[in-house]
């Protein structure tokens, strides 16, 4: 699940200066779940834009805005989308990017959201960062707790000196990731793993942009 948060209205309006008509894209997947890009948010966005003198010519709520085929089909079947002076997308960066690559190159595509993290959905409306997409998973030796993601310093060989009674000094409401890794491995009788030296991470595994082509 990709987490997004709303940009301030003025940040969106700033980039719309000089335009008259706007089309909106939402996303019925992640953005809808974190209440940033579903039906309700599209209605709110349209109202805000109208209040500021723009004509909203329509809105498209796709099942997944990061699917090229779905966006392409929307542009083909809904001519209003292509005619608008600008498009505001209420989806994650991948969604914005997908809309941008299907729009005519002359049409400005603007993000309405900031994309923040890949989440574990603890319960409805509660999301916690669970993975940094680092390309080199170490959860086998850390008791299922990710030091890249859950330690603010991303340390690989144990806790820093900032542990205070087991708590993290940066996010003081969180238990130190390395203390949790320690406790978990201890329960598993695998503390010896903590004594192993973890070498520096191979960042070449994550050179951008990454891709996967199955055919």
């Amino acid at each position: 699940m990709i987490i997004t948060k709303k940009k301030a209205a003025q940040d969106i309006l700033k980039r719309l200066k000089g335009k008259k008509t706007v089309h909106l894209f939402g996303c019925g997947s992640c953005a809808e779940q974190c209440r940033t890009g579903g039906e309700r948010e599209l209605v709110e966005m349209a109202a805000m834009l109208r209040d500021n003198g723009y004509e909203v010519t329509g809105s498209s709520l796709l099942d997944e805005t990061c699917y090229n085929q779905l966006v392409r089909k929307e542009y083909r079947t809904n001519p209003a989308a292509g005619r608008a002076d600008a498009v505001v997308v209420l989806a994650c960066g991948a969604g914005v990017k997908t809309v941008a690559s299907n729009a005519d190159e002359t049409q400005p595509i603007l993000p309405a959201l900031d994309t923040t993290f890949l989440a574990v959905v603890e319960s409805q409306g509660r999301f916690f960062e669970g993975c940094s997409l680092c390309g080199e998973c170490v959860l086998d030796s850390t008791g299922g707790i990710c030091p890249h993601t859950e330690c603010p310093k991303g340390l690989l060989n144990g806790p820093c000196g900032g542990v205070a009674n087991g708590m993290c000094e940066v996010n003081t409401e969180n238990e130190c990731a390395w203390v949790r890794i320690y406790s978990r491995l201890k329960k598993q009788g695998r503390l010896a793993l903590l004594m192993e030296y973890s070498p520096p991470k191979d960042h070449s595994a994550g050179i951008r942009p990454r891709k996967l082509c199955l055919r």
Partner: protein
Amino acid sequence: MMEEASGLKKALDGGGFVITAEICPPRGSDTAGFLAKARLLKDRIVAANVTDNQRAVMRLSSLACSVLLLREGVEPVFQMTCRDRNRLAVQSDLLGAWVLGIRNILALTGDHVSFGDHREAKAVYDLDSVQLVHTVDVLNHGKNLKDRALGNGTGFFLGAVVAPGAEPFEPEWIKFRKKVEAGARFFQTQAIFDMERFKRFFDDAETFGAKILGGILLLKSAKMAHYLNSNVPGVKVPRELVEELEKAPEGGAQLEKGIEIAARQVKELKGFCHGAHIMAIGQEESVPKIIAMA
């Protein structure tokens, strides 16, 4: 100068009680105050640590200030954190430090940028402190992190940090042992207030062959002690010491009491430990007095 070995290593190997202290670089490029502190400490301590953007507050480079100390005839311990440099910059700065005559390195993780004055900065941590110790060790063996022979490498006396008061302690203990295995030969500890607990740590740690300098933090006032207790992880100033400070009137008298406490702690360390590392945090002019009283 280039061929000279670490005086800190020599002193620790010699078996005497070794005292180091830390000096913080200035915020800007006016080095007068820094140099005055260096002159004050010269010949009273074996080596002076130069902090590296301590508490993530941007200051004059620890490498440059270490070289300034060398020119003053004070042996520096160049503190290097993992926060501000990736592995290329780490190795390159280490080689630079070596050719400029620096012989001691203290490898640290580094306080997170969220504590400092540039909170929007990217925190690097390309290496962690154990990996940094390993990196110095690799350079000491004439290679770089890619196992490439360098012709000439470095010969640093390599140190690291340990927090004997960490809670829970076992993960910290495991990390201490990893640092020793990675090549750390001396340790400067975080501030000690519970001397009995530290003694137990020392007795265990000593068996791993590393030299240990107990960290002594100068308590400048009762207010500072309260601040440490509520804001600095792993530091717990016991109530007796806070009360001792509070009994003295605020101001100079509390500082005098703090100096007395620090001296007492150094004296206790003299009874069993390899040395003491005095952290006076801006009050370096009090260090000679602490040493004289200890």
